[in-house]
């Protein structure tokens, strides 16, 4: 690195500001924001660690907090379980070698050296879909896969296998703690994480990743989400408070956890998408040409073809930190590292928050960002990427751009289709939906069967996605404060939002709420950024 990465900035749009690039699903839009609008640009990618293997070794042998070095925890005859974050992290998937695979290989080396031969490796996917063979290979590497998978020692967690779960107890707040039986019966559980955003990691890794519906429902609900302000800020997140209580109960139960957390920089887009890493007025001739060519090439393509192109993107992330040891101490350092990369300070809230939603969220890797996931990406993830207070004022308006096509991946998201056709057709109120439909979907035998044997998200998962939006919906004052720009009209209405074809139309529609001359703030995400609103 020849120069220090620049911090993110808040640009005030004036007459000389070029149009701003909005992500728009599997495409882009150039939008001219009204003069006076503010655009929040992310920090540039931090310098990465050159010697990642060295950093891993250092972390394993120099643990943080009250924890012995990994080699000291390994001995022959023991039961070792390694759990790792699933396909939902990172976004986009990272170019090989994936950091998880590198870490797992080092852990296995140590285990082999210590003569440990009872090792199982579990994708900690909670209620997410099972990972395919190709995805598992990508995450852990072919060597690990071929050594473990054929014998059934590398597998996806199954939250619906009653024989593979252990009820550990109930917290003093009544939250049940149910965990993978194999993990509970292990002498050591090593958890390998990628902490893409501040939501991830800490006690959430184990307490959520290896837990079934019975345990998750205590915090994956409307009330908790409304009290999590935001769920990206663990100190102010009810979601994390509850997870932490469950995590501490797990620790107290005697399960020894060796937590390994990693952070990445924001080197998100490889060539030819490099222009996405830059600020528009700094685009050179080549960036402009590439962008024009990309647009021209994408335009005639059907969405399915665009989708294939976008989903082939693998990010050239650099690793910025690896830390291991006791969960809470490790996680405190991890959060510091995440903030170092992502946090941008913004002065004051605005009436209108605009965002261009990309093609990808945590739940549609190699899949389709369906309308429910679009809602969750905008009002769940992007809205909550704040510390302090939201970018948009209470009672304000969110304008999010996305094609929002009523398209679904039938294998990955079967219960989403029914949620869209049946539940949202009835109500868009998270509380009503939770009360009226959640249990039926959560305990549905067919969804259960698809989750366990096919590659389906759990039947209840679309509900969680909708709950994720409930803080934003409450803060804004309802779905009519949400405008989907350039989205499918019918699908947008089904979500309870308002459709607009252009930014100008969207602002016109918003004017009955925020008036003719609202303050506007736009977040340029991705590359990822989190705002601290003063």
């Amino acid at each position, binding site marked *: 690195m020849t120069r220090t990465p620049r911090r993110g900035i808040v640009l005030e749009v004036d007459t000389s500001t070029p149009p701003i690039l909005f992500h728009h699903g599997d495409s882009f839009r150039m939008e001219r924001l009204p003069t006076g609008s503010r655009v929040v640009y992310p920090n540039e990618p931090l310098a990465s660690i050159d010697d990642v293997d060295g950093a891993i070794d250092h972390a394993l042998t120099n643990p943080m907090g009250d924890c012995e070095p990994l080699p000291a925890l390994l001995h022959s005859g023991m039961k070792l379980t390694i759990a790792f974050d699933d396909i939902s992290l990172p976004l986009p998937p990272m170019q090989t070698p994936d950091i998880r695979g590198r870490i797992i290989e080092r852990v296995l080396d140590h285990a082999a050296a210590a003569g440990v031969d009872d090792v199982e490796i579990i994708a900690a996917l909670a209620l997410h879909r099972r990972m395919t063979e190709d995805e598992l290979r990508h995450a852990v590497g072919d060597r690990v896969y071929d050594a473990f998978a054929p014998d059934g020692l590398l597998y996806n967690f199954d939250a619906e296998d009653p024989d593979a779960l252990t009820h550990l107890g109930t917290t003093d707040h009544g939250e049940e703690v149910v965990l993978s039986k194999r993990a509970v019966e292990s002498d050591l559980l090593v958890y390998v994480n990628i902490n893409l955003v501040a939501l991830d990691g800490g006690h959430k890794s184990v307490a959520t990743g290896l837990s079934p519906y019975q345990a998750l429902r205590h915090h994956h609900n409307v009330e908790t989400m409304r009290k999590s302000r935001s769920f990206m800020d663990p100190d102010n997140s009810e979601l994390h408070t509850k997870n932490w209580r469950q995590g501490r109960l797990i620790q107290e139960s005697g399960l020894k956890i060796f937590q390994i957390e990693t952070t990445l920089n924001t080197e998100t887009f490889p060539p030819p998408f490099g222009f996405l890493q830059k600020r528009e007025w700094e685009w050179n001739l080549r960036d402009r040409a590439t962008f024009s060519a990309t647009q021209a090439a994408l335009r005639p393509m059907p969405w399915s073809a665009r989708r294939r192109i976008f989903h082939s993107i693998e990010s050239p992330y650099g690793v910025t930190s690896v830390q291991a040891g006791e969960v809470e101490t490790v996680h405190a350092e991890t959060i510091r590292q995440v903030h170092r990369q992502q946090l941008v300070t913004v002065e004051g809230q605005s009436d209108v928050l605009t965002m261009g939603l990309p093609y990808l969220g945590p739940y549609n890797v190699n899949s389709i960002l369906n309308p429910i996931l679009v809602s969750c990406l905008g009002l769940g993830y992007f809205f909550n990427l704040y510390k302090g207070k939201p970018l948009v004022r209470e009672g304000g308006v969110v304008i999010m751009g996305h094609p929002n096509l009523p398209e679904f991946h039938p294998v990955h998201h079967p219960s989403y289709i029914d949620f869209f056709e049946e539940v949202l057709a009835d109500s868009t109120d998270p509380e009503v939906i939770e009360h009226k439909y959640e249990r039926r979907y959560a305990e549905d035998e*067919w969804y259960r069967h698809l989750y366990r044997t096919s590659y389906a998200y759990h039947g209840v998962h679309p509900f969680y996605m909708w709950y994720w939006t409930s803080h934003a919906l409450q803060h804004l004052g309802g779905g009519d404060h949400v405008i989907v720009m350039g989205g499918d009209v019918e699908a947008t209405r089904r979500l309870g939002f308002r459709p607009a074809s252009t930014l100008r139309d969207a602002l016109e529609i918003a004017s009955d709420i925020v008036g003719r001359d609202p303050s506007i703030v736009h977040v340029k995400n991705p590359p990822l950024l989190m705002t601290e609103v003063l």
Partner: protein
Amino acid sequence: MIADALAGSRIAITGSTGFLGTALVERLLRSVPGCELVLLIRPGRRATPQRRFEREILKNDAFGRLRDELGDRFDDEMARRVSAISGDVSKDGLGLDPEGRDVLAGCDVVIHSAATVSFDSPLDASVETNLLGPNRILHVLQEEGVTPHLVAVSTCYVAGNRRGRAAEEFLTESPFHVDVDWRAEVTAAQRARADADTESRAPDALRRFRKEARNELGAAGLPMLAAKTEQLRQRWVDDRMVEVGRARATSLGWPDVYTYSKALGEQALLELRGDVPLTVVRPSIIESALAEPFPGWIRGFRMAEPLIISYAKGELTQFPGNPESVVDVIPVDHVAAAVIAAAAQEPPTAPKVYQVASGSVRPLEYRMLTETVRGWFTEKPLYDSKGHPIVPDEWVFTGSAGLEERLERLVAGIKRLDRGVASLPLRGRQADFNQRLQDRLDLLEQALGYVKIYGAYGRCEALYSITELDALRESLDPADRETFAFDPRAVDWRTYIREVHLPTVVVQARVRQTPGARRGQSREDRLRAQVLHEDRQFAAFDLENTLIASNVVESYSWLATRRLGTADRIRFAAKLAAAGPSMLAQDGRDRTDFLRSFYRRYQDAPVDQLEEDAVELASQLLLLKAFPDGLRRVRAHRRAGHRTVLITGALDVVVDPIRPLFDDVVPARLRRHDDGTFGAALTDVPPTGETRAQVMLEWAAEHDFDPGQGVAYADATSDLPMLEAVGYPVVVNPEVRLAGISEKRGWLVEHWSPSAGSPIPRLPIGPRHRSARRSNA
């Protein structure tokens, strides 16, 4: 006074369930309080004449006024004054029992208004009703030795295709009379039926019907094919008789078989009447009521209405005829009044003829009619399915000959196209194209029908004099002239069309007269609600193309390629693709044979390996191609408490991964060898076609279910036996033939498709299993 003249008399009426008949019954009951009526009604399959009288006559809105007038006494009055007896003018002796004969013999007046008014009836049917019907009445009266006044309703158009004045006289008296022996016509008509029947049973003809039946039904199984073949034969004979009739009528100068048979009927009456006093009343084209029982009253969809509606919908813009020609229309209440007035006269010693027509005294010009219609629909347009108004086009007149020819050509062209499309493997919305073609064909054929009729009537530029009718009216008491008004001079055509006729027509046609999206439940919604109603007991599903857009060949290809190396995979796929057409042809002929021979390919395949691979097959092919709406429907049935069963020709291993979707699954099963491989033979007849219906019924019997409370989902004509075996058939993405059949039967049709965006693989080739990967690495 008419009411006094008919007081205490018994009046027999034939054809009382028809348009004019209903008007007569109502009028007599309301305006002639002293008379009693004897209605000769043909018993229905399930309804007695009395029941038909109550349902088809008294329930008609014509009786609203009388109901109001009589109040609580209505039912008693009707029971006291009307007796409905079994009678059928197409049967010798009128199908009367001895008691019925006595009742008829006791009548003072017999009004014969039964007729086959269809212009396109088979020759022998028209002859039976229109020619022999009146004869039979005479015959019974003569056998009984009674001479009541016989008032026979005929038509002005018996005068035939001619120009100029047509007087109120019998045809034999007319200078234009063509001397035809009606007896010879009867014999010829009956012989023509026998000839056509013989011709239809020739081996070549039967082969043709059978082929046609197969084209229409596909592989629907023997019993259905046989029934269809016979149906087609009978239809062919009928069509032949229509053709023969039209030709015969035209050759003698009548516009159609209706007027031809009516004319000969008059002739026979005249010849055979003996001592029976005879009055013939000839109306022109009867249309909705001017005033009685209320303005606009009409029964059924008459001749001109479909034409008017087609025009208002923008479907027809060209009409045959000369704009200056006269359309002879007469309101139904005028005709009824004239018939009653004639019946109230002293029975005539010499037969009398009255024409009830408007053309000679109050002509309605074709141009005036069309301009008024256009003006009205411009002010009050119909709305299309999207709620947009349809602006009526200029009404274009053409010579009927040219138009007829053009339409004929168009119809022939579409029929060819239709046959072409029907043979394509189209489904669902694509098959809709064919349905649209069919609709267009129906419309054109309808139009062609109108053109033929109106063309003929248009050529018939006769003016029907009403001198006798005028004299009859003049002879009436002034009060009667008002009560029983039938002076066509009183009709103001513009007002009649705008305020009386058209408002009725649009109501009768149930067309949209309001803008905006349709409110309330659609027909589909209603059918869906029925299908999911808690009273239903079970739902049976086919798999391929009903719930999943895939088939046994694809599954096989996927499974077979999963463990092959790259070169082998390509070779395999190519081979299967080459064999595809012949396999499909076999599938079309007989699905059972197809499956039997196809499944031999699984011979010696290891069972456990296939079971393992089938789990992946479900995720990587079947579920990607599944119809989410279909899967949701299965689950909706289960939630409604219905037991669900999948009955499929697919192999058990293939469907095992989706078994939990259903309560029960009946798949095809291959024998399994002791060494854990598959054998070549199926354990049972695969559940497809007739077998599927049988399997379903056996399954339903096991659970004590009533098939009448069952729902069945299928997509192919080969599933017709299963669909017909349940009370609630649902057709999914039907192919062309089945789309036509379900449309006719009013079945619920669902258009289901794979999830939008589903990444369906282009070729059904399984991704390599890791064992194959390693060996290839």
